[in-house]
Protein backbone atom coordinates (compact mmCIF):
# COMPACT_ATOMS: atom_id res chain seq x y z
CA UNK A 1 0.00 0.00 0.00
CA UNK A 2 1.19 3.47 -0.83
CA UNK A 3 2.05 5.39 2.30
CA UNK A 4 0.42 8.79 2.60
CA UNK A 5 3.44 10.43 4.16
CA UNK A 6 7.08 9.52 4.62
CA UNK A 7 6.74 9.75 8.40
CA UNK A 8 5.53 6.18 8.83
CA UNK A 9 7.96 4.10 10.86
CA UNK A 10 8.23 0.34 10.90
CA UNK A 11 7.48 -1.06 14.37
CA UNK A 12 10.49 -2.83 15.84
CA UNK A 13 9.32 -6.29 16.84
CA UNK A 14 12.72 -7.70 17.66
CA UNK A 15 12.77 -9.52 20.99
CA UNK A 16 14.16 -7.47 23.87
CA UNK A 17 17.84 -7.85 24.58
CA UNK A 18 19.01 -8.74 28.07
CA UNK A 19 19.82 -5.12 28.89
CA UNK A 20 16.39 -4.04 27.75
CA UNK A 21 14.83 -6.77 29.85
CA UNK A 22 16.52 -5.40 32.95
CA UNK A 23 14.71 -2.09 32.25
CA UNK A 24 17.56 -0.28 33.95
CA UNK A 25 19.01 1.55 30.99
CA UNK A 26 15.62 2.75 29.85
CA UNK A 27 14.76 3.81 33.37
CA UNK A 28 17.95 5.85 33.50
CA UNK A 29 17.01 7.49 30.21
CA UNK A 30 13.53 8.30 31.51
CA UNK A 31 14.93 9.72 34.71
CA UNK A 32 17.27 11.95 32.73
CA UNK A 33 14.25 13.34 30.93
CA UNK A 34 12.37 14.10 34.15
CA UNK A 35 15.51 15.61 35.65
CA UNK A 36 15.85 18.02 32.75
CA UNK A 37 12.34 19.21 33.47
CA UNK A 38 13.56 20.70 36.75
CA UNK A 39 15.31 23.42 34.78
CA UNK A 40 12.45 24.21 32.48
CA UNK A 41 10.53 27.44 32.74
CA UNK A 42 7.21 27.03 34.50
CA UNK A 43 4.30 28.32 32.46
CA UNK A 44 2.27 28.92 35.63
CA UNK A 45 0.77 32.36 36.21
CA UNK A 46 0.53 32.75 40.01
CA UNK A 47 -2.98 34.07 39.75
CA UNK A 48 -3.93 36.45 42.52
CA UNK A 49 -0.49 38.07 42.46
CA UNK A 50 0.14 37.83 38.73
CA UNK A 51 -2.50 38.27 36.11
CA UNK A 52 -2.66 37.08 32.59
CA UNK A 53 -2.29 39.71 29.87
CA UNK A 54 -5.61 40.11 28.12
CA UNK A 55 -6.14 40.90 24.50
CA UNK A 56 -7.27 44.46 23.85
CA UNK A 57 -10.77 43.25 22.96
CA UNK A 58 -11.32 41.28 26.17
CA UNK A 59 -14.88 41.63 27.46
CA UNK A 60 -15.18 41.67 31.24
CA UNK A 61 -17.58 43.35 33.64
CA UNK A 62 -19.49 46.44 32.50
CA UNK A 63 -18.70 50.02 33.39
CA UNK A 64 -21.12 52.96 33.08
CA UNK A 65 -19.13 55.83 31.70
CA UNK A 66 -18.99 59.55 32.62
CA UNK A 67 -17.64 62.41 30.56
CA UNK A 68 -14.61 64.52 31.53
CA UNK A 69 -16.68 66.75 33.80
CA UNK A 70 -18.08 63.80 35.68
CA UNK A 71 -21.52 63.80 34.10
CA UNK A 72 -23.18 60.47 33.43
CA UNK A 73 -23.34 59.75 29.73
CA UNK A 74 -26.28 57.33 29.81
CA UNK A 75 -29.61 58.71 28.57
CA UNK A 76 -31.64 55.59 29.30
CA UNK A 77 -32.54 55.15 25.64
CA UNK A 78 -32.77 51.39 26.18
CA UNK A 79 -30.83 50.37 23.07
CA UNK A 80 -28.47 48.25 25.15
CA UNK A 81 -31.41 46.42 26.73
CA UNK A 82 -32.86 45.81 23.27
CA UNK A 83 -29.53 44.61 21.92
CA UNK A 84 -28.89 42.29 24.85
CA UNK A 85 -29.45 38.69 23.70
CA UNK A 86 -29.57 37.44 27.28
CA UNK A 87 -32.01 40.12 28.43
CA UNK A 88 -29.79 40.94 31.36
CA UNK A 89 -30.23 44.72 31.35
CA UNK A 90 -33.15 46.67 32.84
CA UNK A 91 -33.40 50.38 33.37
CA UNK A 92 -35.79 53.13 34.38
CA UNK A 93 -35.52 56.57 32.85
CA UNK A 94 -36.00 59.85 34.65
CA UNK A 95 -35.98 63.49 33.62
CA UNK A 96 -33.16 65.73 34.69
CA UNK A 97 -34.32 68.38 37.11
CA UNK A 98 -33.18 71.96 37.48
CA UNK A 99 -29.74 72.07 39.13
CA UNK A 100 -28.72 68.55 38.18
CA UNK A 101 -26.80 69.62 35.07
CA UNK A 102 -23.50 68.75 36.71
CA UNK A 103 -24.70 65.17 37.27
CA UNK A 104 -26.26 64.19 33.97
CA UNK A 105 -25.11 65.12 30.49
CA UNK A 106 -28.49 65.25 28.81
CA UNK A 107 -32.09 65.92 29.82
CA UNK A 108 -32.91 62.26 30.35
CA UNK A 109 -30.94 59.86 32.51
CA UNK A 110 -31.15 56.35 33.95
CA UNK A 111 -32.60 56.51 37.46
CA UNK A 112 -32.19 52.75 37.78
CA UNK A 113 -29.77 50.69 35.74
CA UNK A 114 -29.30 47.01 36.54
CA UNK A 115 -27.36 44.24 34.89
CA UNK A 116 -27.89 40.66 35.99
CA UNK A 117 -24.37 39.27 35.83
CA UNK A 118 -25.65 35.72 36.07
CA UNK A 119 -27.61 36.21 32.86
CA UNK A 120 -25.02 38.27 31.06
CA UNK A 121 -22.99 36.39 28.46
CA UNK A 122 -20.41 39.16 28.03
CA UNK A 123 -21.00 39.41 24.30
CA UNK A 124 -20.43 43.16 24.24
CA UNK A 125 -23.47 43.93 22.11
CA UNK A 126 -24.59 46.58 24.64
CA UNK A 127 -21.31 48.38 24.11
CA UNK A 128 -21.82 48.26 20.34
CA UNK A 129 -25.43 49.39 20.58
CA UNK A 130 -24.79 52.41 22.80
CA UNK A 131 -24.95 55.67 20.80
CA UNK A 132 -23.64 57.73 23.71
CA UNK A 133 -20.50 55.72 24.51
CA UNK A 134 -22.01 55.26 27.96
CA UNK A 135 -21.36 51.58 28.58
CA UNK A 136 -18.27 49.55 27.91
CA UNK A 137 -16.85 46.24 29.02
CA UNK A 138 -13.77 46.40 31.24
CA UNK A 139 -11.05 43.80 31.85
CA UNK A 140 -12.39 42.84 35.26
CA UNK A 141 -13.67 39.30 35.49
CA UNK A 142 -14.44 36.57 38.07
CA UNK A 143 -16.93 38.38 40.24
CA UNK A 144 -17.63 36.21 43.27
CA UNK A 145 -20.32 36.32 45.90
CA UNK A 146 -22.15 34.10 48.35
CA UNK A 147 -25.54 35.37 47.27
CA UNK A 148 -27.31 35.28 43.94
CA UNK A 149 -29.01 38.59 44.69
CA UNK A 150 -25.70 40.41 44.78
CA UNK A 151 -25.04 39.46 41.18
CA UNK A 152 -27.66 41.93 40.04
CA UNK A 153 -25.35 44.91 39.71
CA UNK A 154 -26.88 48.27 40.50
CA UNK A 155 -25.88 51.61 39.12
CA UNK A 156 -23.61 52.19 42.11
CA UNK A 157 -21.69 49.03 41.24
CA UNK A 158 -21.38 49.91 37.59
CA UNK A 159 -20.60 53.65 37.54
CA UNK A 160 -17.07 54.73 36.84
CA UNK A 161 -15.47 56.96 39.56
CA UNK A 162 -16.11 60.65 39.12
CA UNK A 163 -13.09 62.30 37.44
CA UNK A 164 -13.61 65.59 39.33
CA UNK A 165 -13.55 63.98 42.79
CA UNK A 166 -11.62 60.75 42.18
CA UNK A 167 -9.39 61.49 39.20
CA UNK A 168 -7.08 58.57 39.96
CA UNK A 169 -9.85 56.02 40.04
CA UNK A 170 -11.29 57.40 36.85
CA UNK A 171 -7.94 57.23 35.10
CA UNK A 172 -7.40 53.69 36.32
CA UNK A 173 -10.83 52.70 35.05
CA UNK A 174 -10.23 54.42 31.73
CA UNK A 175 -6.74 52.96 31.36
CA UNK A 176 -8.43 49.58 31.18
CA UNK A 177 -5.22 47.82 32.25
CA UNK A 178 -6.10 45.12 34.83
CA UNK A 179 -8.21 47.45 36.89
CA UNK A 180 -10.68 46.66 39.58
CA UNK A 181 -13.54 48.74 38.23
CA UNK A 182 -16.92 47.13 38.47
CA UNK A 183 -15.76 44.78 41.20
CA UNK A 184 -18.04 44.88 44.20
CA UNK A 185 -17.03 46.94 47.28
Amino acid at each position, binding site marked *: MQALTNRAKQVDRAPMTFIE*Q*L*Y*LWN*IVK*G*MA*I*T*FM*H*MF*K*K*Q*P*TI*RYPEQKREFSSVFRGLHVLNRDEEGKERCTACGLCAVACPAEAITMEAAERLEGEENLYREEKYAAKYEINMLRCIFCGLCEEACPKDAIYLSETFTPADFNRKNFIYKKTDLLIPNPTTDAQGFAAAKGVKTNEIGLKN
Partner: protein
Amino acid sequence: MTILALDWFLLIEKLILIAVIIFASLGVALYTTFAERKVAAILQDRPGPNRAGPFGLFQPLADGLKLITKEEIIPTHANKWLFILGPGLAMTAALMTCAVVPWGGTIDVMGHKVDLQIADVNIGILYVFAVVSMGVYGVMIGGWASNNKFSLMASLRAASQAISYELAMGLSLIALLMVTGSLSLRTIVEQQVGHVWNIVYQPVGFLIFFICALAECNRTPFDLPEAENELNFGYHQEYSSMKLGFYLFSEYINMFISSTIMATMFFGGYDLPFVTSHLSSPGTAAIVGIVVLMAKVVMFIFLFMWIRWTIPRFRYDQLMDLGWKKMIPLALANMLVTGFIVLLKQNNWHF
Protein backbone atom coordinates in the same frame (compact mmCIF):
# COMPACT_ATOMS: atom_id res chain seq x y z
CA MET B 1 24.59 3.69 94.76
CA THR B 2 26.97 4.66 91.98
CA ILE B 3 25.66 1.86 89.80
CA LEU B 4 22.13 3.04 90.40
CA ALA B 5 23.12 6.62 89.51
CA LEU B 6 24.76 5.46 86.31
CA ASP B 7 21.66 3.49 85.37
CA TRP B 8 19.52 6.58 85.89
CA PHE B 9 21.72 8.53 83.55
CA LEU B 10 21.54 5.78 80.95
CA LEU B 11 17.76 5.66 81.27
CA ILE B 12 17.36 9.40 80.82
CA GLU B 13 19.89 9.45 78.00
CA LYS B 14 18.06 6.71 76.12
CA LEU B 15 14.66 8.26 76.79
CA ILE B 16 15.82 11.59 75.41
CA LEU B 17 17.40 9.86 72.42
CA ILE B 18 14.22 7.91 71.73
CA ALA B 19 12.06 11.02 72.02
CA VAL B 20 14.37 13.05 69.80
CA ILE B 21 14.66 10.36 67.15
CA ILE B 22 10.94 9.61 67.05
CA PHE B 23 10.03 13.27 66.82
CA ALA B 24 12.75 13.81 64.24
CA SER B 25 11.44 10.91 62.15
CA LEU B 26 7.91 12.28 62.41
CA GLY B 27 9.11 15.74 61.44
CA VAL B 28 11.11 14.38 58.55
CA ALA B 29 8.11 12.35 57.41
CA LEU B 30 5.92 15.44 57.70
CA TYR B 31 8.20 17.43 55.49
CA THR B 32 8.80 14.52 53.15
CA THR B 33 5.14 14.74 52.19
CA PHE B 34 5.75 18.38 51.38
CA ALA B 35 8.96 17.56 49.53
CA GLU B 36 7.13 14.88 47.58
CA ARG B 37 4.59 17.38 46.34
CA LYS B 38 7.23 19.97 45.57
CA VAL B 39 9.47 17.50 43.74
CA ALA B 40 6.51 16.19 41.78
CA ALA B 41 5.54 19.72 40.87
CA ILE B 42 9.02 20.77 39.82
CA LEU B 43 9.53 17.66 37.73
CA GLN B 44 6.23 18.42 36.02
CA ASP B 45 6.96 22.15 35.44
CA ARG B 46 4.53 23.30 38.14
CA PRO B 47 5.14 25.46 41.21
CA GLY B 48 3.57 23.04 43.69
CA PRO B 49 2.02 24.01 47.03
CA ASN B 50 2.90 27.65 47.65
CA ARG B 51 -0.06 29.14 49.51
CA ALA B 52 0.49 28.24 53.17
CA GLY B 53 3.37 30.29 54.53
CA PRO B 54 6.53 31.26 52.65
CA PHE B 55 7.06 28.85 49.72
CA GLY B 56 4.16 26.82 51.12
CA LEU B 57 6.31 25.64 54.03
CA PHE B 58 3.33 25.32 56.40
CA GLN B 59 1.49 23.06 53.97
CA PRO B 60 2.22 19.82 55.90
CA LEU B 61 0.89 21.42 59.09
CA ALA B 62 -2.28 22.39 57.26
CA ASP B 63 -2.55 18.88 55.84
CA GLY B 64 -2.10 17.37 59.30
CA LEU B 65 -4.71 19.69 60.77
CA LYS B 66 -7.11 18.75 58.01
CA LEU B 67 -6.58 15.03 58.63
CA ILE B 68 -7.07 15.37 62.39
CA THR B 69 -10.26 17.39 62.12
CA LYS B 70 -11.88 15.05 59.61
CA GLU B 71 -14.56 12.60 60.63
CA GLU B 72 -13.43 9.14 61.74
CA ILE B 73 -15.38 6.54 59.88
CA ILE B 74 -15.36 2.86 60.84
CA PRO B 75 -17.40 0.88 58.28
CA THR B 76 -20.31 -1.08 59.74
CA HIS B 77 -19.10 -4.46 58.59
CA ALA B 78 -15.46 -3.85 59.34
CA ASN B 79 -13.68 -5.75 62.06
CA LYS B 80 -13.43 -2.85 64.48
CA TRP B 81 -10.38 -3.83 66.50
CA LEU B 82 -8.31 -4.98 63.57
CA PHE B 83 -9.40 -1.88 61.71
CA ILE B 84 -7.93 0.27 64.47
CA LEU B 85 -4.91 -1.99 64.94
CA GLY B 86 -3.86 -1.81 61.27
CA PRO B 87 -2.62 1.77 61.04
CA GLY B 88 -1.17 1.59 64.54
CA LEU B 89 0.86 -1.45 63.59
CA ALA B 90 2.04 0.14 60.36
CA MET B 91 3.16 3.23 62.26
CA THR B 92 4.81 1.30 65.11
CA ALA B 93 6.72 -0.95 62.76
CA ALA B 94 7.87 2.04 60.76
CA LEU B 95 9.09 3.88 63.85
CA MET B 96 10.72 0.87 65.54
CA THR B 97 13.34 0.44 62.84
CA CYS B 98 15.19 3.61 63.75
CA ALA B 99 16.26 2.10 67.10
CA VAL B 100 19.40 0.44 65.73
CA VAL B 101 20.57 3.08 63.29
CA PRO B 102 23.73 4.90 64.36
CA TRP B 103 22.92 8.56 63.79
CA GLY B 104 26.39 9.80 64.58
CA GLY B 105 29.55 9.07 66.53
CA THR B 106 29.95 9.51 70.27
CA ILE B 107 29.50 12.77 72.14
CA ASP B 108 30.50 13.79 75.67
CA VAL B 109 27.65 14.88 77.93
CA MET B 110 28.75 15.83 81.47
CA GLY B 111 31.62 13.36 81.40
CA HIS B 112 29.52 10.53 80.03
CA LYS B 113 30.08 9.05 76.64
CA VAL B 114 26.81 9.05 74.74
CA ASP B 115 26.47 7.03 71.58
CA LEU B 116 24.08 8.67 69.12
CA GLN B 117 22.23 5.42 68.72
CA ILE B 118 19.34 4.04 70.73
CA ALA B 119 20.60 0.47 70.90
CA ASP B 120 23.80 -0.94 69.45
CA VAL B 121 22.39 -4.44 68.99
CA ASN B 122 24.89 -6.91 67.62
CA ILE B 123 22.22 -8.30 65.29
CA GLY B 124 21.16 -4.85 64.08
CA ILE B 125 20.39 -5.83 60.50
CA LEU B 126 18.38 -8.87 61.53
CA TYR B 127 16.37 -6.62 63.82
CA VAL B 128 15.71 -4.21 60.95
CA PHE B 129 14.59 -7.09 58.80
CA ALA B 130 12.29 -8.48 61.46
CA VAL B 131 10.64 -5.12 62.05
CA VAL B 132 10.36 -4.23 58.37
CA SER B 133 8.58 -7.47 57.64
CA MET B 134 6.22 -6.62 60.51
CA GLY B 135 5.30 -3.49 58.57
CA VAL B 136 3.39 -5.46 55.99
CA TYR B 137 1.09 -6.75 58.76
CA GLY B 138 -0.23 -3.24 59.16
CA VAL B 139 -1.18 -3.16 55.48
CA MET B 140 -2.54 -6.72 55.54
CA ILE B 141 -4.61 -6.31 58.68
CA GLY B 142 -5.95 -2.96 57.56
CA GLY B 143 -6.94 -4.33 54.17
CA TRP B 144 -8.53 -7.40 55.67
CA ALA B 145 -10.42 -5.57 58.40
CA SER B 146 -11.92 -3.06 55.95
CA ASN B 147 -14.19 -5.79 54.58
CA ASN B 148 -13.83 -4.39 51.10
CA LYS B 149 -12.78 -6.43 48.10
CA PHE B 150 -10.38 -3.82 46.77
CA SER B 151 -8.70 -3.45 50.13
CA LEU B 152 -8.43 -7.21 50.47
CA MET B 153 -6.92 -7.50 47.02
CA ALA B 154 -4.46 -4.76 47.89
CA SER B 155 -3.42 -6.49 51.09
CA LEU B 156 -2.92 -9.75 49.20
CA ARG B 157 -0.72 -7.92 46.74
CA ALA B 158 1.18 -6.24 49.54
CA ALA B 159 1.83 -9.54 51.28
CA SER B 160 3.01 -11.39 48.17
CA GLN B 161 5.11 -8.44 47.09
CA ALA B 162 6.75 -8.14 50.47
CA ILE B 163 7.57 -11.85 50.54
CA SER B 164 8.97 -11.87 47.01
CA TYR B 165 11.19 -8.88 47.48
CA GLU B 166 12.35 -9.59 51.00
CA LEU B 167 14.03 -12.73 49.67
CA ALA B 168 16.14 -10.84 47.17
CA MET B 169 16.80 -8.14 49.77
CA GLY B 170 18.03 -10.69 52.27
CA LEU B 171 20.23 -12.40 49.70
CA SER B 172 21.80 -9.11 48.66
CA LEU B 173 22.49 -8.37 52.31
CA ILE B 174 24.13 -11.73 52.91
CA ALA B 175 26.71 -10.76 50.31
CA LEU B 176 27.31 -7.50 52.13
CA LEU B 177 27.59 -9.27 55.47
CA MET B 178 30.25 -11.57 54.03
CA VAL B 179 32.31 -8.47 53.30
CA THR B 180 31.73 -6.73 56.62
CA GLY B 181 31.66 -9.78 58.85
CA SER B 182 29.33 -8.08 61.31
CA LEU B 183 25.60 -7.59 61.78
CA SER B 184 25.93 -4.55 63.99
CA LEU B 185 25.17 -1.37 62.10
CA ARG B 186 27.67 0.65 64.14
CA THR B 187 30.47 -1.79 63.36
CA ILE B 188 29.56 -1.66 59.70
CA VAL B 189 29.76 2.14 59.71
CA GLU B 190 32.99 2.20 61.67
CA GLN B 191 34.57 -0.17 59.15
CA GLN B 192 33.71 2.31 56.42
CA VAL B 193 35.02 5.41 58.22
CA GLY B 194 38.37 6.27 56.67
CA HIS B 195 38.12 3.39 54.22
CA VAL B 196 36.16 2.91 51.03
CA TRP B 197 32.42 2.62 51.35
CA ASN B 198 30.71 -0.72 50.94
CA ILE B 199 29.11 0.39 47.68
CA VAL B 200 32.52 -0.15 46.06
CA TYR B 201 32.54 -3.79 47.17
CA GLN B 202 28.86 -4.43 46.57
CA PRO B 203 27.49 -2.34 43.66
CA VAL B 204 25.18 -5.11 42.45
CA GLY B 205 24.12 -5.83 46.01
CA PHE B 206 23.24 -2.18 46.49
CA LEU B 207 21.22 -2.09 43.28
CA ILE B 208 19.20 -5.12 44.37
CA PHE B 209 18.79 -3.75 47.86
CA PHE B 210 17.63 -0.39 46.51
CA ILE B 211 15.05 -1.92 44.18
CA CYS B 212 13.79 -4.15 46.96
CA ALA B 213 13.62 -1.17 49.30
CA LEU B 214 11.37 0.56 46.78
CA ALA B 215 9.17 -2.51 46.80
CA GLU B 216 9.18 -2.78 50.59
CA CYS B 217 8.16 0.86 50.97
CA ASN B 218 5.34 0.35 48.43
CA ARG B 219 6.82 3.13 46.34
CA THR B 220 6.29 3.51 42.62
CA PRO B 221 7.01 1.50 40.45
CA PHE B 222 5.98 -1.10 43.05
CA ASP B 223 2.99 0.69 44.56
CA LEU B 224 0.55 -2.03 43.61
CA PRO B 225 -1.03 -2.25 47.08
CA GLU B 226 -2.34 1.27 46.72
CA ALA B 227 -2.75 1.39 42.97
CA GLU B 228 -5.10 4.33 42.73
CA ASN B 229 -6.56 3.57 39.35
CA GLU B 230 -7.11 -0.17 39.76
CA LEU B 231 -7.90 -0.58 43.43
CA ASN B 232 -9.29 2.77 44.55
CA PHE B 233 -6.35 3.50 46.86
CA GLY B 234 -6.11 -0.15 47.87
CA TYR B 235 -5.69 -1.09 51.49
CA HIS B 236 -6.49 2.31 52.97
CA GLN B 237 -9.59 2.95 50.92
CA GLU B 238 -11.97 2.67 53.89
CA TYR B 239 -9.76 4.74 56.17
CA SER B 240 -10.35 8.34 57.03
CA SER B 241 -9.03 11.00 59.33
CA MET B 242 -5.84 10.33 61.28
CA LYS B 243 -5.95 6.56 60.67
CA LEU B 244 -5.47 7.31 57.00
CA GLY B 245 -2.86 9.83 58.06
CA PHE B 246 -1.01 7.09 59.95
CA TYR B 247 -0.89 4.92 56.84
CA LEU B 248 0.33 7.74 54.67
CA PHE B 249 2.80 8.76 57.33
CA SER B 250 4.17 5.28 57.86
CA GLU B 251 4.94 5.11 54.17
CA TYR B 252 7.06 8.23 54.44
CA ILE B 253 8.72 7.08 57.65
CA ASN B 254 9.52 3.78 55.95
CA MET B 255 11.06 5.74 53.13
CA PHE B 256 13.12 7.77 55.58
CA ILE B 257 14.27 4.70 57.49
CA SER B 258 15.17 2.67 54.42
CA SER B 259 17.13 5.66 53.10
CA THR B 260 18.96 5.74 56.41
CA ILE B 261 19.65 2.01 56.30
CA MET B 262 20.97 2.25 52.75
CA ALA B 263 23.16 5.22 53.63
CA THR B 264 24.42 3.35 56.69
CA MET B 265 25.20 0.07 55.03
CA PHE B 266 26.41 1.08 51.60
CA PHE B 267 27.36 4.76 51.80
CA GLY B 268 29.34 5.00 55.01
CA GLY B 269 26.58 6.19 57.34
CA TYR B 270 27.79 9.30 59.15
CA ASP B 271 31.17 9.16 57.43
CA LEU B 272 32.32 12.10 55.35
CA PRO B 273 35.25 10.84 53.25
CA PHE B 274 38.67 12.35 54.02
CA VAL B 275 37.17 14.44 56.84
CA THR B 276 35.58 12.35 59.60
CA SER B 277 38.68 10.28 60.34
CA HIS B 278 40.77 13.48 60.72
CA LEU B 279 38.43 15.33 63.07
CA SER B 280 40.09 15.39 66.49
CA SER B 281 37.14 16.42 68.67
CA PRO B 282 34.54 13.65 68.95
CA GLY B 283 31.78 16.23 69.54
CA THR B 284 32.46 18.00 66.25
CA ALA B 285 32.74 14.66 64.50
CA ALA B 286 29.36 13.62 65.85
CA ILE B 287 27.65 16.81 64.69
CA VAL B 288 29.32 16.65 61.28
CA GLY B 289 28.28 12.98 61.20
CA ILE B 290 24.60 13.75 61.80
CA VAL B 291 24.60 16.44 59.12
CA VAL B 292 26.36 14.17 56.64
CA LEU B 293 24.01 11.27 57.32
CA MET B 294 21.00 13.54 56.89
CA ALA B 295 22.41 14.87 53.61
CA LYS B 296 22.78 11.31 52.35
CA VAL B 297 19.25 10.50 53.49
CA VAL B 298 17.87 13.55 51.71
CA MET B 299 19.64 12.45 48.52
CA PHE B 300 18.08 9.02 48.78
CA ILE B 301 14.62 10.42 49.48
CA PHE B 302 14.97 12.66 46.45
CA LEU B 303 15.97 9.61 44.41
CA PHE B 304 12.87 7.77 45.67
CA MET B 305 10.67 10.67 44.59
CA TRP B 306 12.47 11.18 41.32
CA ILE B 307 11.80 7.52 40.51
CA ARG B 308 8.20 7.83 41.57
CA TRP B 309 7.52 10.69 39.19
CA THR B 310 9.33 9.02 36.31
CA ILE B 311 8.42 5.36 36.17
CA PRO B 312 4.92 3.98 35.72
CA ARG B 313 3.66 1.16 37.91
CA PHE B 314 4.55 -2.44 37.09
CA ARG B 315 1.86 -4.85 36.12
CA TYR B 316 1.36 -7.57 38.71
CA ASP B 317 2.91 -10.35 36.60
CA GLN B 318 5.83 -8.09 35.70
CA LEU B 319 6.34 -7.43 39.39
CA MET B 320 6.51 -11.13 40.21
CA ASP B 321 8.65 -11.76 37.13
CA LEU B 322 11.16 -9.14 38.18
CA GLY B 323 11.19 -10.30 41.77
CA TRP B 324 11.53 -14.05 41.28
CA LYS B 325 13.19 -14.41 37.88
CA LYS B 326 15.55 -11.44 37.82
CA MET B 327 16.25 -10.19 41.33
CA ILE B 328 16.67 -13.48 43.16
CA PRO B 329 19.00 -15.13 40.59
CA LEU B 330 21.02 -11.92 40.41
CA ALA B 331 21.24 -11.74 44.19
CA LEU B 332 22.23 -15.41 44.37
CA ALA B 333 24.94 -14.92 41.75
CA ASN B 334 26.18 -11.85 43.58
CA MET B 335 26.26 -13.80 46.83
CA LEU B 336 28.20 -16.67 45.29
CA VAL B 337 30.76 -14.44 43.61
CA THR B 338 31.23 -12.42 46.80
CA GLY B 339 31.59 -15.57 48.86
CA PHE B 340 34.16 -16.91 46.45
CA ILE B 341 36.23 -13.74 46.54
CA VAL B 342 36.00 -13.43 50.31
CA LEU B 343 37.16 -17.02 50.69
CA LEU B 344 39.97 -16.42 48.24
CA LYS B 345 41.09 -13.37 50.19
CA GLN B 346 41.10 -15.27 53.47
CA ASN B 347 43.29 -17.84 51.79
CA ASN B 348 45.75 -15.10 50.75
CA TRP B 349 44.63 -15.26 47.10
CA HIS B 350 45.63 -18.93 46.73
CA PHE B 351 43.29 -21.49 45.30
